[in-house]
């Protein structure tokens, strides 16, 4: 396992990266604090020392050298390669191209007649937090006790035994962002995971993925709290709630910055007293410093427009609007602010704010030059994301938008990677990236096509030709079924 010193190093690096990204990082690494007052202040009391308290413990098995040959390859970058070869070495993509020479010693997978895509990414899933079976005891996705629960972290609800993970894997899903629900203005932190067998969330956590903050517009918060006779009971109170929280978060951030400055300048035993750590404000201030990405549940065009103004007012960025059924009405605004949208092709009409949902939503956003994503928000739909993307593509092409398969694959690979901040690590088949790869037995957009092989970091996690003898989830292991009704006891 990783040494304590090693973890300090990782934390320091994360801070450094965060600083680069925003230009105004907090700049006081845990390493610097290891001196005299280490005894005085436990890591959990110092916001900067406790940046990654539930770190990824995911370690991929060695992948060796693998060459997938002869396939139609959709790279996720917009390219389509016929007779393509994908070479995987030590868990990374080494090379992708037409008819590449196979390196000596490589395990060859003949993929002639098959298609290869990056691993599918679902950036809106509740697997693990709303696990199957969907009994009350598994309902851990929505902390519906206060409109601001920015202090909760979805990872503390994730049950890795949710059978939905294995079903999603069969659908080619290699990376998921697991989110809290949308009852609250601030629902809490999301967590990004790799779709691997795990005993706890740390063993699934995507190394180096930033956190997201789930926010919600519209009907849900105002219904949930309005029905309880408290704010917010209207959309205008929703917005007042966001603004009030950002003002408090900015003040909190200033307090800590002042403390660190004082501490740096302090001499000898005249150490300053640290401010009291507040988990809710810490998450919000993480958004203001650019370390945490805003993942905003928002359906209507008018509300998304307002939310982009709120972001401007307080100096943060919305990474993505989720559901975004009216994104097609504001494609120019989304493009201008570089905000991704994650939506469906066929869901609409389940509530008033979803009434104007259209099947070509993603296609229209994409063709206008903005970032479109197809997401699931559902334990069944997650298994069929390429088919859902196909519907959006078909309707887009009915409208004359001319969307090609090599573009549409980006809606479920490269674009969600960008929206959740892992685009430098996965989401496309480019040299150096994690070898998250799916080999399909045909065109992935066809209803008949199934995933043959699903690689995560170069390790085959699912092989349809050699299905696992036992279910992955402990819940499904050893449950009596067919042998009762069809075995010797049945007449």
């Amino acid at each position, binding site marked *: 396992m990783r040494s304590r010193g090693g973890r300090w190093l990782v934390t320091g690096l994360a801070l450094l990266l965060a600083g680069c990204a925003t230009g105004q990082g907090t700049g006081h690494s845990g390493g610097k604090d290891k001196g005299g007052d280490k005894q005085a202040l436990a890591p959990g009391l110092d916001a900067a020392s406790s940046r990654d308290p539930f770190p990824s413990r995911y370690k991929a098995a060695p992948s060796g050298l693998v060459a997938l040959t002869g396939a139609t390859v959709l790279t996720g970058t917009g390219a389509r390669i016929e007779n393509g070869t994908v070479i995987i070495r030590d868990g990374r993509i080494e090379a992708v191209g037409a008819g590449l020479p196979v390196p000596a010693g490589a395990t060859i997978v003949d993929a002639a007649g098959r298609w290869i895509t990056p691993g599918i990414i679902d950036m809106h899933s509740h697997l693990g937090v709303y696990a199957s079976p969907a*009994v009350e005891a598994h309902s851990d996705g929505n902390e519906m006790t206060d409109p601001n629960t920015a202090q909760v972290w979805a990872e503390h609800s994730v049950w890795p035994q949710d059978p939905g993970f294995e079903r999603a894997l069969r659908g080619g899903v290699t990376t998921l962002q697991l989110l809290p629900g949308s009852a609250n203005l601030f629902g809490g932190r999301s967590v990004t995971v790799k779709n691997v067998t795990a005993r706890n969330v740390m063993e699934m956590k995507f190394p180096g993925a930033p956190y997201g903050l789930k926010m919600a517009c519209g009907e849900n918060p105002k219904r949930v709290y309005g029905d309880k006779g408290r704010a917010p009971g209207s959309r205008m109170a929703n917005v007042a709630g966001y603004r009030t929280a950002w003002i408090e978060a900015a003040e909190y951030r200033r307090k800590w910055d002042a403390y660190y400055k004082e501490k740096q300048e302090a001499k000898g035993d005249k150490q300053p007293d640290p401010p009291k750590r507040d988990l809710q404000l810490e998450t919000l201030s993480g958004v203001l410093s650019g370390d945490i990405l805003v993942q905003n549940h928002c359906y209507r065009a008018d509300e998304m427009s307002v939310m982009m103004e709120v972001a401007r007012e307080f100096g943060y960025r919305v990474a993505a609007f989720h559901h975004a059924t009216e994104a097609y009405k504001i*494609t120019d605004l989304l493009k201008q602010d570089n905000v991704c949208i994650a939506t469906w092709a066929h869901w609409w009409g389940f509530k008033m704010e979803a009434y104007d949902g259209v099947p070509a939503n993603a296609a*229209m956003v994409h063709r206008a030059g903005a970032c479109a994503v197809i997401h699931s928000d559902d334990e*069944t739909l997650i298994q069929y994301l390429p088919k859902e993307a196909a519907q959006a593509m078909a309707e887009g092409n*009915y*409208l004359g*938008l001319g969307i090609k398969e090599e573009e549409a694959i980006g809606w479920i690979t490269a674009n969600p990677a960008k929206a959740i901040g892992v685009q430098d690590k996965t989401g496309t088949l480019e040299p150096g990236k994690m070898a998250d790869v799916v080999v399909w037995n045909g065109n992935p957009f066809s*209803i008949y096509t199934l995933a043959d092989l699903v690689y995560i970091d170069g390790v085959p996690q699912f092989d349809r030709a050699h299905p696992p003898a036992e279910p992955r989830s402990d819940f499904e292991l050893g449950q009596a*079924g067919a042998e009762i009704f069809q075995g010797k006891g049945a007449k």
Partner: protein
Amino acid sequence: MMRGFKQMLLGGAVLLAGLSPTAGAETIAIQGATLVNGSGVSTPDATIIIKDGIVTAAAPGAAVPAGATLVEGKGKVVTPGLFVSSSDIGIEEVSAVKETNDSNAANPRISVAYDPSYAVNPASSLIPLARAGGITRAVVMPAVAFGDGAHIHDGETAGHVDEPLFQGQPALIHLGAAPDIVVKPRLGVALPFGESAASSAGGSRALSVAILKAALEDVRHYAANKGAYNQGGTREYSLSRLDLEALLPVVRGEAPLFLAVHRAADIRVALRLAREEKLRLVLMGAEEGWMVAGEIAAAGVPVIIKPTTNLPGRFEIQHARLDNAALLEKAGVVVILTGSADGHYANQVRFQAGTAVAYGMPRDKALAAITGRPAALFGAGSAGQIAVGKPADLVMWGGDPLEPMVLAERVFVNGVEQSLKTRQRALEERYLKR
């Protein structure tokens, strides 16, 4: 440049969307298409002639009458109009806006007798979307057997409300643009059986069976003593007069019970109950049906299933799996495929069928399971097939109808060609033009 591009796009869309319904006398000849009949069997290179809305020929090499409008059918597939066999289409507009949603009826005095056909709105915006997706018939099913995702976790309370055990009488509707779309009301009686029934019966499946048995006994007694009942001279019954009347055709074996049943053990109890009470049965859901497929087949009971259910979302569907449809079919059960009960998603039924094929159901059987088979079960007349001498009720597809990349290009309902305009397409076009 962008504006020119958009105008070009819109031109194409208008051209496609602008097909007007057949007006007056007209003969259409679709040439060279693959013809799929109600049994799902394909015939390549067929000619389909529709004269004044009536199919006058559907076979390879059929003679094309002079003056017919020729339609290039190469690469196209012509199927009967599709069925969605359990839906709330027509009785809801916005699910969470309860004033627009008649699908949640729960009145203890009118439960069996609840007849949703009176609530059907032919002007609902859900209907054109389904129709543009090739659906020409739907069964408005009051029982909730095929719920799915759409945001139940958004803060709704989980669990069942207090609702009567009986959920009412399904109705067959067509999806043509017309003021009267109810084809056949009161197809039978729908009720849940299993976890949901246990909840409304008082906390046990066994109670729901007792309630059902008592109701059947009351109906028989009522039928034999109607005169006395009207004089107030019978014992008290467990159901209201309206409900007793509505259950009569079921007791007489004239109409089926549509049972939403899931667990293998519950399916066996349902089959036993049907034997004992001499009832006609249709099973809905039947996620664990594959384990008792032989018994279902032997009982001659049809099943309506949603083939994509493959998670243990409830303990009663712990063994749901993607080849349920294929295994039931193989065992000789009459399998009908459907999708979500939410009418907004009626157009997804063909992808449900496609998924069943991907997991082993023969393609012709899967096509029959969304055309000819439901037509036969629900007594839909000439719908669900392409029959010479009958009104055209069919769809010309751009290719394989089970593929999401393929769209319906021409749709006929009851002999009338339909517009493929939808509210969704009107919105898309408005914002492309902007």
